[in-house]
Protein backbone atom coordinates (compact mmCIF):
# COMPACT_ATOMS: atom_id res chain seq x y z
CA UNK A 1 0.00 0.00 0.00
CA UNK A 2 1.60 3.21 -1.11
CA UNK A 3 1.32 6.11 1.30
CA UNK A 4 0.09 8.47 -1.44
CA UNK A 5 -2.96 6.22 -1.78
CA UNK A 6 -3.87 6.30 1.88
CA UNK A 7 -5.61 9.68 1.79
CA UNK A 8 -7.50 8.65 -1.32
CA UNK A 9 -8.63 5.37 0.23
CA UNK A 10 -9.83 7.05 3.42
CA UNK A 11 -11.67 9.63 1.32
CA UNK A 12 -13.22 6.78 -0.69
CA UNK A 13 -14.36 5.12 2.55
CA UNK A 14 -16.08 8.30 3.70
CA UNK A 15 -17.54 8.84 0.25
CA UNK A 16 -18.91 5.29 0.26
CA UNK A 17 -20.98 6.06 3.36
CA UNK A 18 -22.88 8.80 1.55
CA UNK A 19 -22.91 7.05 -1.80
CA UNK A 20 -24.64 4.01 -0.32
CA UNK A 21 -26.71 6.10 2.05
CA UNK A 22 -29.52 3.65 2.64
CA UNK A 23 -27.27 0.71 3.49
CA UNK A 24 -25.18 2.97 5.73
CA UNK A 25 -28.32 4.16 7.49
CA UNK A 26 -29.51 0.56 7.89
CA UNK A 27 -26.15 -0.54 9.33
CA UNK A 28 -26.11 2.33 11.85
CA UNK A 29 -29.76 1.70 12.84
CA UNK A 30 -29.14 -2.01 13.42
CA UNK A 31 -26.01 -1.24 15.45
CA UNK A 32 -27.90 1.31 17.55
CA UNK A 33 -30.85 -1.02 18.14
CA UNK A 34 -28.66 -3.95 19.15
CA UNK A 35 -26.40 -1.91 21.43
CA UNK A 36 -29.44 -0.25 23.04
CA UNK A 37 -30.89 -3.66 23.91
CA UNK A 38 -27.55 -4.82 25.33
CA UNK A 39 -27.01 -1.53 27.19
CA UNK A 40 -30.50 -1.39 28.67
CA UNK A 41 -30.36 -4.95 29.89
CA UNK A 42 -26.87 -4.50 31.31
CA UNK A 43 -27.82 -1.36 33.23
CA UNK A 44 -30.96 -3.04 34.54
CA UNK A 45 -28.98 -6.03 35.77
CA UNK A 46 -26.31 -3.78 37.26
CA UNK A 47 -28.89 -1.80 39.21
CA UNK A 48 -30.66 -4.96 40.39
CA UNK A 49 -27.41 -6.41 41.61
CA UNK A 50 -26.55 -3.17 43.46
CA UNK A 51 -30.02 -3.15 45.06
CA UNK A 52 -29.69 -6.75 46.21
CA UNK A 53 -26.23 -6.02 47.55
CA UNK A 54 -27.53 -3.01 49.50
CA UNK A 55 -30.40 -5.07 50.83
CA UNK A 56 -27.96 -7.76 51.84
CA UNK A 57 -25.90 -5.27 53.79
CA UNK A 58 -28.88 -4.52 56.01
CA UNK A 59 -28.74 -8.14 57.16
CA UNK A 60 -26.94 -7.67 60.46
CA UNK A 61 -25.67 -10.26 62.88
CA UNK A 62 -25.94 -9.76 66.62
CA UNK A 63 -22.97 -10.61 68.84
CA UNK A 64 -23.90 -10.89 72.55
CA UNK A 65 -21.28 -10.17 75.16
CA UNK A 66 -20.76 -12.22 78.33
CA UNK A 67 -22.79 -10.48 81.08
CA UNK A 68 -19.97 -10.98 83.60
CA UNK A 69 -17.74 -8.50 81.77
CA UNK A 70 -17.60 -4.90 82.81
CA UNK A 71 -18.90 -2.18 80.45
CA UNK A 72 -15.34 -1.24 79.44
CA UNK A 73 -14.37 -4.87 78.82
CA UNK A 74 -17.52 -5.39 76.78
CA UNK A 75 -16.80 -2.34 74.61
CA UNK A 76 -13.20 -3.46 74.03
CA UNK A 77 -14.42 -6.62 72.28
CA UNK A 78 -15.48 -4.38 69.37
CA UNK A 79 -11.80 -3.85 68.53
CA UNK A 80 -11.32 -7.60 68.05
CA UNK A 81 -14.48 -8.00 66.02
CA UNK A 82 -13.53 -5.13 63.70
CA UNK A 83 -10.16 -6.78 63.07
CA UNK A 84 -11.84 -9.76 61.38
CA UNK A 85 -11.39 -9.37 57.63
CA UNK A 86 -14.98 -9.76 56.45
CA UNK A 87 -16.42 -7.44 59.12
CA UNK A 88 -17.53 -4.14 57.66
CA UNK A 89 -18.56 -2.53 60.93
CA UNK A 90 -19.22 -3.61 64.52
CA UNK A 91 -21.38 -1.13 66.44
CA UNK A 92 -21.64 -1.41 70.22
CA UNK A 93 -25.20 -1.47 71.59
CA UNK A 94 -25.38 -1.23 75.36
CA UNK A 95 -28.01 -3.21 77.23
CA UNK A 96 -29.79 0.10 78.07
CA UNK A 97 -29.83 1.06 74.39
CA UNK A 98 -31.08 -2.40 73.46
CA UNK A 99 -33.99 -2.04 75.86
CA UNK A 100 -34.81 1.38 74.49
CA UNK A 101 -34.82 -0.08 70.99
CA UNK A 102 -37.19 -2.89 72.04
CA UNK A 103 -39.51 -0.42 73.75
CA UNK A 104 -39.48 1.80 70.68
CA UNK A 105 -40.22 -1.16 68.47
CA UNK A 106 -42.96 -2.77 70.58
CA UNK A 107 -44.01 0.33 72.57
CA UNK A 108 -47.72 0.03 71.96
CA UNK A 109 -48.00 -3.42 73.51
CA UNK A 110 -46.45 -2.34 76.86
CA UNK A 111 -44.77 -5.75 77.23
CA UNK A 112 -41.51 -4.20 78.39
CA UNK A 113 -43.12 -2.16 81.17
CA UNK A 114 -41.11 -2.66 84.35
CA UNK A 115 -38.30 -4.58 82.60
CA UNK A 116 -34.82 -3.86 83.91
CA UNK A 117 -31.96 -3.43 81.42
CA UNK A 118 -29.77 -5.75 83.52
CA UNK A 119 -31.80 -8.68 82.13
CA UNK A 120 -30.23 -7.96 78.76
CA UNK A 121 -26.65 -8.32 77.49
CA UNK A 122 -24.41 -5.77 75.90
CA UNK A 123 -24.17 -6.55 72.19
CA UNK A 124 -22.60 -5.61 68.90
CA UNK A 125 -24.52 -5.07 65.71
CA UNK A 126 -22.18 -6.37 62.97
CA UNK A 127 -22.48 -5.87 59.21
CA UNK A 128 -20.36 -7.90 56.82
CA UNK A 129 -18.56 -7.10 53.60
CA UNK A 130 -19.57 -10.36 51.93
CA UNK A 131 -22.53 -12.31 53.23
CA UNK A 132 -21.38 -15.39 51.34
CA UNK A 133 -18.81 -15.74 54.18
CA UNK A 134 -21.32 -15.46 57.02
CA UNK A 135 -20.62 -18.93 58.39
CA UNK A 136 -16.83 -18.46 58.49
CA UNK A 137 -17.13 -14.97 59.96
CA UNK A 138 -19.46 -16.04 62.79
CA UNK A 139 -17.04 -18.84 63.60
CA UNK A 140 -14.21 -16.32 63.85
CA UNK A 141 -16.29 -14.02 66.08
CA UNK A 142 -17.30 -16.92 68.28
CA UNK A 143 -13.63 -17.53 68.94
CA UNK A 144 -13.16 -14.11 70.56
CA UNK A 145 -13.01 -14.30 74.32
CA UNK A 146 -16.03 -12.68 75.98
CA UNK A 147 -18.48 -13.44 73.18
CA UNK A 148 -21.41 -15.30 74.74
CA UNK A 149 -23.65 -15.90 71.77
CA UNK A 150 -24.29 -14.95 68.17
CA UNK A 151 -27.58 -14.51 66.37
CA UNK A 152 -27.44 -14.54 62.57
CA UNK A 153 -30.09 -15.02 59.89
CA UNK A 154 -28.21 -17.72 58.00
CA UNK A 155 -31.11 -18.61 55.73
CA UNK A 156 -31.78 -15.00 54.79
CA UNK A 157 -28.11 -14.41 54.01
CA UNK A 158 -28.00 -17.57 51.93
CA UNK A 159 -31.13 -16.45 50.09
CA UNK A 160 -29.53 -13.10 49.24
CA UNK A 161 -26.31 -14.77 48.18
CA UNK A 162 -28.19 -17.16 45.90
CA UNK A 163 -30.16 -14.27 44.41
CA UNK A 164 -26.95 -12.34 43.76
CA UNK A 165 -25.31 -15.36 42.14
CA UNK A 166 -28.34 -16.03 39.95
CA UNK A 167 -28.48 -12.39 38.88
CA UNK A 168 -24.78 -12.38 38.08
CA UNK A 169 -24.91 -15.58 36.02
CA UNK A 170 -28.13 -14.53 34.28
CA UNK A 171 -26.74 -11.13 33.34
CA UNK A 172 -23.51 -12.59 31.98
CA UNK A 173 -25.38 -15.22 29.95
CA UNK A 174 -28.07 -12.86 28.63
CA UNK A 175 -25.65 -10.03 27.80
CA UNK A 176 -23.31 -12.48 26.04
CA UNK A 177 -26.16 -13.97 24.02
CA UNK A 178 -27.51 -10.51 23.15
CA UNK A 179 -24.06 -9.36 22.14
CA UNK A 180 -23.48 -12.40 19.90
CA UNK A 181 -26.93 -12.02 18.30
CA UNK A 182 -26.25 -8.31 17.78
CA UNK A 183 -22.89 -9.02 16.17
CA UNK A 184 -24.48 -11.56 13.81
CA UNK A 185 -27.26 -9.17 12.83
CA UNK A 186 -24.86 -6.29 12.27
CA UNK A 187 -22.41 -8.49 10.41
CA UNK A 188 -25.21 -9.61 8.08
CA UNK A 189 -26.17 -6.01 7.46
CA UNK A 190 -22.56 -5.25 6.53
CA UNK A 191 -22.60 -8.29 4.23
CA UNK A 192 -25.70 -6.94 2.52
CA UNK A 193 -23.90 -3.64 1.99
CA UNK A 194 -20.99 -5.56 0.46
CA UNK A 195 -23.32 -7.57 -1.76
CA UNK A 196 -24.72 -4.28 -3.01
CA UNK A 197 -21.20 -3.39 -4.19
CA UNK A 198 -19.95 -6.73 -5.50
CA UNK A 199 -19.68 -5.39 -9.07
CA UNK A 200 -17.47 -2.56 -7.89
CA UNK A 201 -15.22 -5.03 -6.09
CA UNK A 202 -15.06 -7.25 -9.20
CA UNK A 203 -13.96 -4.29 -11.32
CA UNK A 204 -11.30 -3.39 -8.78
CA UNK A 205 -9.97 -6.96 -8.89
CA UNK A 206 -10.04 -6.95 -12.67
CA UNK A 207 -7.93 -3.83 -13.04
CA UNK A 208 -5.27 -5.27 -10.75
CA UNK A 209 -6.10 -3.70 -7.40
CA UNK A 210 -4.45 -5.48 -4.50
CA UNK A 211 -6.61 -6.91 -1.73
CA UNK A 212 -5.41 -4.20 0.65
CA UNK A 213 -6.41 -1.47 -1.79
CA UNK A 214 -9.88 -2.96 -2.14
CA UNK A 215 -10.38 -3.61 1.54
CA UNK A 216 -9.26 -0.36 3.11
CA UNK A 217 -12.15 1.90 1.97
CA UNK A 218 -14.64 -0.73 3.18
CA UNK A 219 -12.85 -1.06 6.50
CA UNK A 220 -12.74 2.74 6.91
CA UNK A 221 -16.44 2.82 6.10
CA UNK A 222 -17.16 0.00 8.57
CA UNK A 223 -15.10 1.74 11.26
CA UNK A 224 -16.96 5.03 10.85
CA UNK A 225 -20.38 3.37 10.72
CA UNK A 226 -19.59 1.16 13.74
CA UNK A 227 -18.35 4.09 15.82
CA UNK A 228 -21.26 6.26 14.73
CA UNK A 229 -23.70 3.51 15.74
CA UNK A 230 -21.94 3.14 19.09
CA UNK A 231 -22.00 6.90 19.74
CA UNK A 232 -25.69 7.25 18.87
CA UNK A 233 -26.56 4.19 20.97
CA UNK A 234 -24.60 5.56 23.92
CA UNK A 235 -26.29 8.98 23.77
CA UNK A 236 -29.72 7.37 23.40
CA UNK A 237 -29.00 5.02 26.30
CA UNK A 238 -28.00 7.94 28.55
CA UNK A 239 -31.10 9.98 27.67
CA UNK A 240 -33.44 6.99 28.07
CA UNK A 241 -31.86 5.91 31.35
CA UNK A 242 -32.07 9.36 32.92
CA UNK A 243 -35.65 9.78 31.75
CA UNK A 244 -36.71 6.35 33.05
CA UNK A 245 -34.97 6.72 36.40
CA UNK A 246 -36.46 10.20 36.79
CA UNK A 247 -39.96 8.81 36.17
CA UNK A 248 -39.50 5.90 38.58
CA UNK A 249 -38.09 8.15 41.32
CA UNK A 250 -41.02 10.51 40.86
CA UNK A 251 -43.59 7.79 41.60
CA UNK A 252 -41.49 5.77 44.09
CA UNK A 253 -42.43 7.71 47.22
CA UNK A 254 -41.45 4.77 49.49
CA UNK A 255 -37.94 4.80 48.00
CA UNK A 256 -38.16 1.09 47.19
CA UNK A 257 -35.75 1.45 44.31
CA UNK A 258 -32.40 3.14 44.27
CA UNK A 259 -30.78 3.55 40.86
CA UNK A 260 -27.14 4.43 40.39
CA UNK A 261 -26.51 7.59 38.34
CA UNK A 262 -25.70 6.89 34.68
CA UNK A 263 -22.27 8.46 35.11
CA UNK A 264 -21.36 5.57 37.43
CA UNK A 265 -21.83 3.09 34.55
CA UNK A 266 -20.56 5.44 31.87
CA UNK A 267 -16.97 4.24 31.50
CA UNK A 268 -17.64 0.50 31.14
CA UNK A 269 -20.54 1.28 28.84
CA UNK A 270 -18.46 3.60 26.63
CA UNK A 271 -15.75 0.95 26.47
CA UNK A 272 -18.21 -1.85 25.62
CA UNK A 273 -20.10 0.16 23.02
CA UNK A 274 -16.90 1.44 21.39
CA UNK A 275 -15.39 -2.06 21.34
CA UNK A 276 -18.59 -3.56 19.90
CA UNK A 277 -18.88 -0.77 17.30
CA UNK A 278 -15.24 -1.15 16.34
CA UNK A 279 -15.48 -4.92 16.20
CA UNK A 280 -18.61 -5.13 14.08
CA UNK A 281 -17.55 -2.28 11.83
CA UNK A 282 -14.00 -3.29 11.13
CA UNK A 283 -14.09 -7.07 11.58
CA UNK A 284 -17.54 -7.26 9.99
CA UNK A 285 -16.49 -5.45 6.83
CA UNK A 286 -13.09 -7.19 6.73
CA UNK A 287 -14.60 -10.67 6.86
CA UNK A 288 -17.66 -9.89 4.73
CA UNK A 289 -15.57 -8.57 1.88
CA UNK A 290 -13.47 -11.74 1.73
CA UNK A 291 -16.29 -13.55 0.06
CA UNK A 292 -16.37 -11.06 -2.81
CA UNK A 293 -12.60 -10.94 -3.24
CA UNK A 294 -12.32 -14.37 -4.78
CA UNK A 295 -12.53 -13.19 -8.38
Amino acid at each position, binding site marked *: MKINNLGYLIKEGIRGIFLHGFMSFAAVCVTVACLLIVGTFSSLMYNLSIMVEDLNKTNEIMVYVDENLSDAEARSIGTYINRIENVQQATFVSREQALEDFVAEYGESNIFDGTDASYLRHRFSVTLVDNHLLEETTQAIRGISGVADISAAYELAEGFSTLQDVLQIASVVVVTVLLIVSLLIISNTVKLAMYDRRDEIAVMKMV*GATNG*FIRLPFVVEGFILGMLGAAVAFAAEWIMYDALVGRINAVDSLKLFSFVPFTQMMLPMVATFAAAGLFVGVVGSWTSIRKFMDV
Partner: protein
Amino acid sequence: MIEFTNVTKSYSVGTHALRGVTMQIEDGEFAFLVGPSGSGKSTIIKLITGELKPTSGTVHVNGYSLERIRKREVPYLRRTVGVVFQDFRLIETKTVYDNVAFAMRAIGARTREIRERVPYILELVGLETKSRRHPTELSGGEQQRLAIARALVNNPSTIIADEPTGNLDPARSYEIMTLLQEINNLGTTMLVVTHERDLVERFSKRVIAINEGVVVHDGMDGYYRL
Protein backbone atom coordinates in the same frame (compact mmCIF):
# COMPACT_ATOMS: atom_id res chain seq x y z
CA MET B 1 3.54 -12.66 -24.92
CA ILE B 2 0.85 -15.27 -24.37
CA GLU B 3 1.92 -18.88 -24.65
CA PHE B 4 -0.25 -21.97 -24.08
CA THR B 5 1.51 -25.32 -24.26
CA ASN B 6 -0.62 -28.46 -24.29
CA VAL B 7 -3.09 -26.92 -21.86
CA THR B 8 -6.01 -28.87 -20.49
CA LYS B 9 -8.63 -27.57 -18.13
CA SER B 10 -11.26 -29.70 -16.46
CA TYR B 11 -13.88 -28.47 -14.03
CA SER B 12 -14.95 -30.37 -10.94
CA VAL B 13 -18.32 -31.17 -12.55
CA GLY B 14 -16.42 -33.26 -15.08
CA THR B 15 -16.48 -30.81 -18.00
CA HIS B 16 -13.32 -30.80 -20.10
CA ALA B 17 -13.16 -27.18 -21.26
CA LEU B 18 -9.74 -27.34 -22.92
CA ARG B 19 -8.05 -30.41 -24.38
CA GLY B 20 -4.42 -29.87 -25.19
CA VAL B 21 -4.48 -26.27 -26.42
CA THR B 22 -1.20 -24.99 -27.76
CA MET B 23 -0.89 -21.47 -29.14
CA GLN B 24 1.40 -18.50 -29.00
CA ILE B 25 0.58 -14.83 -29.42
CA GLU B 26 3.64 -12.66 -29.84
CA ASP B 27 4.10 -9.22 -28.38
CA GLY B 28 2.39 -6.59 -30.52
CA GLU B 29 0.31 -9.14 -32.42
CA PHE B 30 -3.43 -8.83 -33.18
CA ALA B 31 -5.47 -12.05 -33.09
CA PHE B 32 -9.10 -13.05 -33.07
CA LEU B 33 -10.21 -15.96 -30.91
CA VAL B 34 -13.39 -17.42 -32.34
CA GLY B 35 -15.60 -20.36 -31.56
CA PRO B 36 -19.16 -21.31 -30.67
CA SER B 37 -20.61 -21.01 -27.17
CA GLY B 38 -19.06 -23.52 -24.80
CA SER B 39 -16.03 -24.05 -27.01
CA GLY B 40 -13.57 -22.95 -24.31
CA LYS B 41 -13.02 -19.24 -25.17
CA SER B 42 -14.02 -17.98 -21.72
CA THR B 43 -11.78 -20.55 -20.08
CA ILE B 44 -8.84 -19.25 -22.13
CA ILE B 45 -9.57 -15.69 -20.97
CA LYS B 46 -9.86 -16.80 -17.34
CA LEU B 47 -6.55 -18.62 -17.63
CA ILE B 48 -4.88 -15.53 -19.08
CA THR B 49 -6.22 -13.25 -16.30
CA GLY B 50 -5.30 -15.68 -13.53
CA GLU B 51 -8.88 -16.45 -12.50
CA LEU B 52 -8.20 -20.14 -13.19
CA LYS B 53 -5.20 -22.42 -13.19
CA PRO B 54 -4.66 -25.04 -15.88
CA THR B 55 -5.29 -28.67 -15.01
CA SER B 56 -2.19 -29.59 -16.99
CA GLY B 57 0.19 -27.92 -19.42
CA THR B 58 1.77 -24.49 -19.07
CA VAL B 59 0.45 -20.97 -19.56
CA HIS B 60 2.85 -18.03 -19.73
CA VAL B 61 1.46 -14.49 -19.84
CA ASN B 62 3.77 -11.48 -19.94
CA GLY B 63 6.45 -13.23 -17.90
CA TYR B 64 4.13 -14.93 -15.39
CA SER B 65 3.75 -18.71 -15.25
CA LEU B 66 0.07 -19.15 -14.56
CA GLU B 67 0.25 -22.76 -13.46
CA ARG B 68 2.28 -21.78 -10.42
CA ILE B 69 1.38 -18.13 -9.88
CA ARG B 70 0.85 -17.08 -6.25
CA LYS B 71 -2.40 -15.47 -5.23
CA ARG B 72 -0.72 -12.23 -4.27
CA GLU B 73 0.99 -12.00 -7.67
CA VAL B 74 -2.30 -12.10 -9.57
CA PRO B 75 -3.03 -8.33 -9.23
CA TYR B 76 0.38 -7.61 -10.76
CA LEU B 77 -0.31 -10.00 -13.67
CA ARG B 78 -3.64 -8.25 -14.24
CA ARG B 79 -1.91 -4.90 -14.52
CA THR B 80 -0.20 -6.23 -17.63
CA VAL B 81 -3.47 -7.44 -19.13
CA GLY B 82 -6.30 -5.01 -19.78
CA VAL B 83 -9.69 -6.67 -20.16
CA VAL B 84 -12.69 -5.32 -22.06
CA PHE B 85 -16.05 -7.04 -21.60
CA GLN B 86 -19.20 -7.21 -23.67
CA ASP B 87 -21.22 -5.79 -20.77
CA PHE B 88 -18.62 -3.03 -20.15
CA ARG B 89 -18.54 -3.52 -16.33
CA LEU B 90 -18.21 0.16 -15.58
CA ILE B 91 -18.78 1.66 -12.14
CA GLU B 92 -21.98 3.61 -12.59
CA THR B 93 -21.47 5.77 -9.52
CA LYS B 94 -18.22 7.19 -10.89
CA THR B 95 -17.81 9.68 -13.71
CA VAL B 96 -16.11 8.82 -17.00
CA TYR B 97 -12.92 10.46 -15.70
CA ASP B 98 -13.09 8.64 -12.35
CA ASN B 99 -13.75 5.24 -13.95
CA VAL B 100 -10.45 5.59 -15.79
CA ALA B 101 -8.57 7.30 -12.95
CA PHE B 102 -9.74 4.55 -10.59
CA ALA B 103 -7.78 1.93 -12.56
CA MET B 104 -4.64 4.05 -12.11
CA ARG B 105 -5.36 4.57 -8.41
CA ALA B 106 -5.56 0.80 -8.04
CA ILE B 107 -1.91 0.44 -8.96
CA GLY B 108 -0.79 3.30 -6.75
CA ALA B 109 -0.30 5.97 -9.41
CA ARG B 110 0.35 9.51 -8.19
CA THR B 111 -2.33 12.17 -8.58
CA ARG B 112 -0.11 14.16 -10.96
CA GLU B 113 0.38 11.12 -13.21
CA ILE B 114 -3.37 10.49 -13.20
CA ARG B 115 -4.13 14.11 -14.13
CA GLU B 116 -1.77 13.84 -17.09
CA ARG B 117 -2.62 10.35 -18.31
CA VAL B 118 -6.42 10.17 -18.03
CA PRO B 119 -7.20 13.12 -20.38
CA TYR B 120 -4.74 11.67 -22.90
CA ILE B 121 -6.44 8.26 -22.85
CA LEU B 122 -9.93 9.79 -23.01
CA GLU B 123 -8.82 11.76 -26.05
CA LEU B 124 -7.43 8.58 -27.61
CA VAL B 125 -10.82 6.86 -27.35
CA GLY B 126 -12.77 10.02 -28.28
CA LEU B 127 -14.39 10.70 -24.91
CA GLU B 128 -12.49 13.86 -23.95
CA THR B 129 -15.67 15.97 -23.97
CA LYS B 130 -17.60 13.56 -21.77
CA SER B 131 -15.26 13.20 -18.83
CA ARG B 132 -17.78 14.53 -16.31
CA ARG B 133 -20.63 12.31 -17.47
CA HIS B 134 -21.63 9.08 -15.77
CA PRO B 135 -21.64 5.76 -17.71
CA THR B 136 -25.45 5.68 -17.77
CA GLU B 137 -25.42 8.96 -19.70
CA LEU B 138 -23.35 7.41 -22.51
CA SER B 139 -24.40 5.39 -25.56
CA GLY B 140 -23.40 1.71 -25.84
CA GLY B 141 -20.50 2.54 -28.15
CA GLU B 142 -19.28 5.25 -25.79
CA GLN B 143 -19.51 2.93 -22.82
CA GLN B 144 -17.37 0.40 -24.66
CA ARG B 145 -14.87 3.16 -25.51
CA LEU B 146 -14.77 4.00 -21.82
CA ALA B 147 -14.16 0.33 -20.95
CA ILE B 148 -11.31 0.30 -23.49
CA ALA B 149 -9.90 3.51 -21.98
CA ARG B 150 -9.93 1.91 -18.55
CA ALA B 151 -8.24 -1.23 -19.88
CA LEU B 152 -5.64 0.90 -21.62
CA VAL B 153 -4.83 3.52 -19.01
CA ASN B 154 -2.22 1.51 -17.12
CA ASN B 155 -0.38 0.88 -20.36
CA PRO B 156 -0.79 -2.93 -20.31
CA SER B 157 1.22 -4.90 -22.81
CA THR B 158 -1.86 -6.97 -23.69
CA ILE B 159 -5.55 -6.26 -24.09
CA ILE B 160 -8.14 -9.02 -24.09
CA ALA B 161 -11.46 -7.92 -25.54
CA ASP B 162 -14.24 -10.40 -24.75
CA GLU B 163 -17.04 -9.92 -27.29
CA PRO B 164 -16.41 -6.16 -27.29
CA THR B 165 -19.01 -5.52 -29.98
CA GLY B 166 -21.66 -7.96 -28.75
CA ASN B 167 -23.97 -5.17 -27.57
CA LEU B 168 -23.37 -2.75 -30.42
CA ASP B 169 -24.87 -2.10 -33.85
CA PRO B 170 -22.69 -2.82 -36.93
CA ALA B 171 -21.50 0.78 -37.37
CA ARG B 172 -20.45 1.09 -33.70
CA SER B 173 -18.90 -2.38 -33.86
CA TYR B 174 -16.72 -1.31 -36.74
CA GLU B 175 -15.67 1.84 -34.89
CA ILE B 176 -14.69 -0.17 -31.81
CA MET B 177 -12.73 -2.68 -33.88
CA THR B 178 -10.96 0.17 -35.64
CA LEU B 179 -10.09 1.67 -32.27
CA LEU B 180 -8.68 -1.66 -31.08
CA GLN B 181 -6.63 -1.91 -34.25
CA GLU B 182 -5.25 1.61 -33.69
CA ILE B 183 -4.28 0.66 -30.15
CA ASN B 184 -2.58 -2.45 -31.52
CA ASN B 185 -0.69 -0.26 -33.96
CA LEU B 186 0.74 1.56 -30.94
CA GLY B 187 2.30 -1.74 -29.84
CA THR B 188 -0.25 -3.35 -27.53
CA THR B 189 -0.88 -7.07 -28.04
CA MET B 190 -4.57 -7.55 -28.84
CA LEU B 191 -6.68 -10.69 -28.44
CA VAL B 192 -10.28 -10.18 -29.49
CA VAL B 193 -12.81 -12.86 -28.68
CA THR B 194 -15.81 -12.64 -30.94
CA HIS B 195 -18.71 -14.43 -32.61
CA GLU B 196 -18.97 -11.96 -35.45
CA ARG B 197 -17.61 -13.58 -38.61
CA ASP B 198 -18.23 -10.44 -40.71
CA LEU B 199 -15.95 -8.34 -38.53
CA VAL B 200 -13.26 -11.00 -38.42
CA GLU B 201 -13.24 -11.33 -42.19
CA ARG B 202 -13.28 -7.58 -42.68
CA PHE B 203 -10.15 -7.00 -40.61
CA SER B 204 -8.08 -9.83 -42.12
CA LYS B 205 -6.05 -10.66 -39.01
CA ARG B 206 -4.82 -13.87 -37.45
CA VAL B 207 -7.71 -16.11 -36.41
CA ILE B 208 -7.51 -18.84 -33.77
CA ALA B 209 -10.64 -20.96 -33.94
CA ILE B 210 -11.51 -23.26 -31.08
CA ASN B 211 -14.17 -25.92 -30.85
CA GLU B 212 -14.89 -28.31 -27.98
CA GLY B 213 -11.69 -27.27 -26.26
CA VAL B 214 -9.45 -27.95 -29.23
CA VAL B 215 -7.77 -25.43 -31.57
CA VAL B 216 -9.22 -26.31 -34.97
CA HIS B 217 -7.78 -23.47 -37.01
CA ASP B 218 -4.94 -20.99 -36.63
CA GLY B 219 -4.26 -18.85 -39.67
CA MET B 220 -3.41 -15.35 -40.81
CA ASP B 221 -5.93 -15.00 -43.65
CA GLY B 222 -8.91 -13.79 -41.64
CA TYR B 223 -11.01 -16.79 -42.66
CA TYR B 224 -11.85 -19.78 -40.57
CA ARG B 225 -13.97 -22.87 -40.58
CA LEU B 226 -15.54 -24.49 -37.52
